């Protein structure tokens, strides 16, 4: 029970932090984009990072607010041992946020027999799809490369 409460508190805090980041990190953002990665196709991992990078290049780091939300097979992008770790770190420095689906992590923990270690730059949200709906309601444009 205590574990469950801790988890709920952590998830709530994470959501609040993400929401706060969304609002505070990019006060001058004129464009707001949420990128979805939920595909098993490995080339999609590269593609979604390329899109984020291109958005930053086109509008400038301060003028565009980008969040990448991973769920389902797409969560592999945010595994700590992912080949793209360096790129994720670079994009984080440019202000891109990474949200990892808590539901998917739970499922993968069951399949793996242990909890997968996620990239330190990723923030766990309760459900990836809910996070996307929330962001769209806040005015973000949803792009699924």
């Amino acid at each position, binding site marked *: 029970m205590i574990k469950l409460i801790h988890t709920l508190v952590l998830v709530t805090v994470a959501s609040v932090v993400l929401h706060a980041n969304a609002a505070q990190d990019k006060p001058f953002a004129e464009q707001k984009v949420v990128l979805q990665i939920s595909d098993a196709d490995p080339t999609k991992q590269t593609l979604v990072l390329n899109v984020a990078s291109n958005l930053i290049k086109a509008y400038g780091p301060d003028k565009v607010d980008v969040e990448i939300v991973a769920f389902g*097979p797409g969560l*592999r*992008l945010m595994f700590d*041992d992912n080949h*793209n770790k360096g790129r994720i770190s670079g994009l984080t420095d440019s202000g891109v946020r990474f949200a990892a689906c808590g539901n998917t992590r739970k499922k993968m923990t069951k399949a*793996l027999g242990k909890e997968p270690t996620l990239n330190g730059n990723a923030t766990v949200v309760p459900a990836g799809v809910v996070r996307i709906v929330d962001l769209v309601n806040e005015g973000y444009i949803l792009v699924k490369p």
Partner: protein
Amino acid sequence: MIPTRRKIYSLMAVIAGCLITQSAYSANWLMLQGTEAHKQGQAPRAHVWGFIQAQYQYDNSDPNPAGGYIPPKLIGPNLDDQSQFNINRARIGVRGTGFPLDSKVNYFILAELGNNGITYGDDGKHLTDASITFNHIPGARVRVGQFKYPGAEEGLQAIHVFDYINFTSVTNQLLLERFPNPDGSDSNQGPTPTPNADMNQYSQSVGAFRDVGVQVFDMFKGGSWEHTYAVMVGNGNGINRGDNDGNKDWYLYWSSELVFGGKGGRREGWKTFAWYQDGKRTNAYDRTQEQDRTRYGAGTKYLKKPFRVTAEVMAGEGMIFQGQHRPQHIFNNGEASGGYIEGGWYIGSTNLEIDLRYDTYTRDENHPTSASGHESTADTVTLGAQYHFNKKTRLNVEYASRDYKSDTPAVNTQQKDVDGRFAIQVTHIF
């Protein structure tokens, strides 16, 4: 006395020169073929891939005075005639991580359906690779199954990015192992007129630079350098499966590479490597006899476009190949050595590449009682060109000028008329 040792020393000097001047095209084949490390967390469950090579070859050699031909004057693997169209390689395979959430385990499986030494006499199909790699122990990845053993660059490299059509004589004869049928049914054949010379008397697959066994290996990075080691133990029976003699082969390998950039099989860098193999073979015609088989070598490879330079030296003792028509003479304690130096020039902003290679090989050295006589030498200069239609499709054209001779008059009569060979080949990777 044919001065092969002097040529080898010259090649070694060239390698040493490359080391000093830091002049390389090189890829880390052990990591590329054995792991999905370059796609960590990205490797698919099953990536289907393969390639097709279609070719035509024409040999310009004259027969012996009686009108007979020996294998170097005919087109393999059939060795029937002096010209042939062929689908020499048609391979299809699957690789990846069967359970993508666990990137610590990956697999590699590949089958050959083309017409070559692997499939000749084997119904036209053969499984060349089937391996599983465990990446759990830092610094000691473990690969089990059937796969390319660590060794010389020309054998270890992915054949679909090989810059020439035919192997050098030293690789073809010293390293590409032939296995006579263990029941002793493979017999010798003398020079035969064409067509339908049918000089390939081996009924089992060539070794294809592969073995079935266990390999421990890994790569370590230090700045721009990559250092790779491998230790392997295998059956020593090529891709013919099973251990036919109860003896195991041991393989050792080390490479250090200064990586310039790029990725995959055409990564730019400068690599230097050394390798050693040791095992025993049983005489197919008298199973009470065993023979040591040792091979060793070193080399260097440099690629930084527009230039590529490669040089290798190799030597071996025991089981010295005497030709596709003489399977009963492969069991021997002869010595052999050779090497090659080659270079490539990528022409400006075109898709064209010019290649030039010199290779030398001497067999039956220091062995006056060899069944086949004394030293025989093969020197070849190959001039080639490649046109890259795109990253996956290319055309190779090459002409090999060959000079074969032997200290033994009877052998020399057969070899002295070995002449030029023209080859053209299209490769498409999918």
